[in-house]
Every structure is written in C-alpha cells, then in structure tokens.
C-alpha cells in the first residue's frame, strides 16, 4: 500500500515556496475541481491581490471526439486581465499533462500572459506531453489501476486519496 503524504503539510510547503515570487503582476488560476480547492487555499494564504480565476477545461479537452462532452462543465471565470499577468496555474495532480495543455490553450483565448508557472500538489509521473511543473508538493507513485484524487471535507481540510481507476 502506497503511503500518501500529509496533504495539509504539502499545502504549507507550497505556500512557503511560492511566497517569495508573489508580486503585483501575480495572478492565480485553479483548475476544477481539485485544483480550485488548492488554489482557493493558496490564493488566500499568499494574499494575492488579483481575484482568483477558476477554469474548467471541458471545452478544450483533446478527447472530446472519443468521449464526448463531460456532463457538468463549470463556467470558467477569469476576473482579471490575463495580458501581461504572471500566472500561477494550479492543479491537484499532474499526470499525462493533457489537462495543462488544454488549460494553456484556454488561457490564451483570454490574453497573452507574461508567464505561466504550473503549481501542483502531487506529480504522479506518466507524462504524455512535454510539460513539467515548476512547483510540486510531492512526487507520488500510484499503483497501476489506481488514480490519485484530492478530496475536501466539510471543514475544508484537503487530503489526497487513492481510488480505483474504474470508479466514476
């Protein structure tokens, strides 16, 4: 059984790591669903001035032809000017890199950011695209047939969890 890292501690590590690079041009975008939870936490603790952006990449996925539109796409809201912003793109788990590719495409439909850095809680390897994260909470090995997801309880506590790939 893989032992998962303490997610709350990873969040604190990320806050410490990101703190020095927060400036007036910094803006943050979280990817639904887990990435939004993490981004809400980081955005608040880092006291980023620009309001938090929320993104659902459903309309930019590369598997639409094979799998159709996902059932409950959330509305993407980017409440700041992307042009010239130093963006922190936040997701819970980095795996194939396809979500990040889709997110970058969507971001560029809002404008031309000065830079994009990727922040993830966990990197589980298995990349299918030339994408890497600049800020990683932890590298996590995930057994075959399983996947790694972020959960949030009623008190707002975050925890990484393994579940069967066939679920959901």
């Amino acid at each position: 059984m893989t032992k998962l890292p303490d997610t709350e501690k990873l969040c604190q590590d990320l806050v410490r790591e990101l703190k020095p690079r927060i400036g007036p041009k910094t803006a943050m975008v979280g990817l639904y669903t887990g990435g939004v939870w993490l981004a809400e936490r980081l955005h608040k603790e880092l006291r980023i001035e620009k309001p938090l952006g929320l993104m659902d990449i459903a309309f930019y996925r590369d598997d639409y032809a094979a799998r159709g539109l996902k059932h409950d796409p959330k509305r993407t809201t980017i409440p700041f000017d992307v042009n010239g912003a130093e963006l922190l793109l936040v997701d819970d788990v980095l795996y194939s890199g396809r979500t990040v590719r889709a997110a970058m495409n969507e971001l560029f439909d809002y404008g031309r950011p000065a830079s994009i850095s990727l922040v993830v809680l966990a990197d589980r390897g298995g990349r299918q695209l030339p994408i890497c994260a600049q800020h990683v909470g932890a590298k996590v090995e995930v057994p075959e047939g399983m996947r790694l997801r972020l959960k949030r309880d009623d008190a707002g506590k975050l925890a990484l969890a393994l579940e069967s790939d066939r679920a959901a």
Partner: protein
Amino acid sequence: MQRNPQLNENGELQHLLSIEGLPREILVQILDTAESFAGVTEREVKKVPLLRGKSVFNLFFEPSTRTRTTFEIAAKRLSADVINLNIAVSSATKGESLLDTVANLSAMHADIFVVRHASSGAPFLIARHVKPHEHVVNAGDGRHAHPTQGLLDLFTIRHYKKDFSKLTVAIVGDVLHSRVARSLIHGLTTLGAPEVRVIGPYTLMPAGVEALGVRVFHDMKAGLKDADVVVMLRLQNERMRGALLPSAQEFFKHYGLTSDKLALARKDAIVMHPGPMNRGVEIDSSVADGPHSVILPQVTFGIAVRMAVMSIVAGN
C-alpha cells in the same frame, strides 16, 4: 419497448428533436452546459475548439432569421464550418425529396443537420435515416416542436428566477399554432414548475391542451394574476386559415400585453417573447421595451443554448 429516437443506446442525447420525452437530467445537463458556454460568449475570443473540423448544415425549408443566425453563430463559436442552405430556392423546388437532399449533404460529409421544416415530424424522418455519426437538431417543425427555443426559454427563466419549483408561468396568445408553446410546456412540467397557464381565445386553444398539465384561461386578467413569468406568443398570421379571429385590433384588446395588464402579474415578473414581435398586436411597445422585458437577453442566451445542444449531440 421502443427506444426514444433522440437517445443512443446509453441513454445519451444523439439528436435533439423534441423536449417531449426527454428526461429531466438531460434538460438540466443542457441548461448547465449552456451556462458554461454563456461565459465563453462574454469573452473577447468567443470561440472554443470543440467542433473543429465538423460541418454543420443549416437546412431551412421555412424562412427564419433569428433561429438560423443564432445556430450559425453558435456553430462558428464551436469552431465548426457552417453551410447555410436556403432550400426554398434550391433542389426542393426542383422536386428533390427530403431524404435525397439529406443523402446528398451526407455525401458532402455533414456532421450536424439543423432542420426547420413546415411539416411536423420532418426532423424525425431525417434522424431515422442519417448515419450513426450524423446528428439532427430540430429548429422548428410545423406546429409540433421548437426544442431549442423551448430550452432557451427555460434557460432565461432559470437565469432570472433561479428555481422552477415555485413558479407560475403564463403563456399567452396563439397556443394552437405554437410549437414554441408546446416545447416550453413540456420543459416546464418536466423541470417541476407547479403552475403553467395558457391564456388565449377558444379559437386559438388546442383541444385537450389540459392533458399537458396546464391550466387554461380565456380571460387574460385572471390568467396573469400573480404570474412570475409571462411568455407572449406571436400571432402567427401566416398560419392563420379562415376566420379564427375577428381582427388584430380585437385580439390586442383582449390578449395584447399592456402595462395595465402586466400590473396584475407579480412585481418582479419577467416578460418573454420568442420573436418576431408584432407590436400592437400581441404586445405593446411600452412593455416590449420596458423594465420587465427580457426579450433581447433571450436572443443572446439562445446562442449559448445552441452551442450546448450541438456540442452535446456531436459528442455522443
């Protein structure tokens, strides 16, 4: 049991032919998806890549400006290629059958057919004959259905009223000839609106309309009382056969929406109209352009709703 012709073997929406018979979950899925697309239509780049490489054929056997245009905009915002066919001046007038027309367009690699036809059921006929990867969206068939209009009406109501469970909706005018009314009634009852009223003269009220779950009023003032939503229907002059009405003026007197009559509805009532409006026949200009009117937002929402429908069917 015969399968719903709109759904595939997994129960997913493959064609949109009618709101009637669609489960609540699919209606909600379309409205939720449209909500996300409404965000796209507010951005500077109003395009997403979902239907890149797909071809949408607008097949309009009946005239239409608003519906055809908003389907075209919706398809373009999904990055599809759009081909508009004005059938009134093309092959159909040379005697080509409906299915031959569709077969020829299919040979040109169509992915979605958006069909408007004067005959009820024409989109169903086409849906039965298209290839598995082709999808049909009904843009109005005869007196039968106009599902995307019904959906954009539902979207508009949900946008302003949030919740269907306490609503009183009054649909006023030429219910007999209205495919818009039929689609909206099915949608409202499926989504749980507790009181749907239809208001109109005896001659413009279909027999047995109560069976759809509506209350019938012939007195507009009684019907509008405490309504949250007032939907005015267009007086369909071109569908009028024989003497159903004494005159347009007479109709306006009894069933035209004026500020005085609207005052009987709730203070925060919204007024809708599918367009095109006949000002001074079914609606007074002071109401059409007044603070309760959401007639123009309806048109804007129609784009997001049609984006949702096309992207859902093309993915199933």
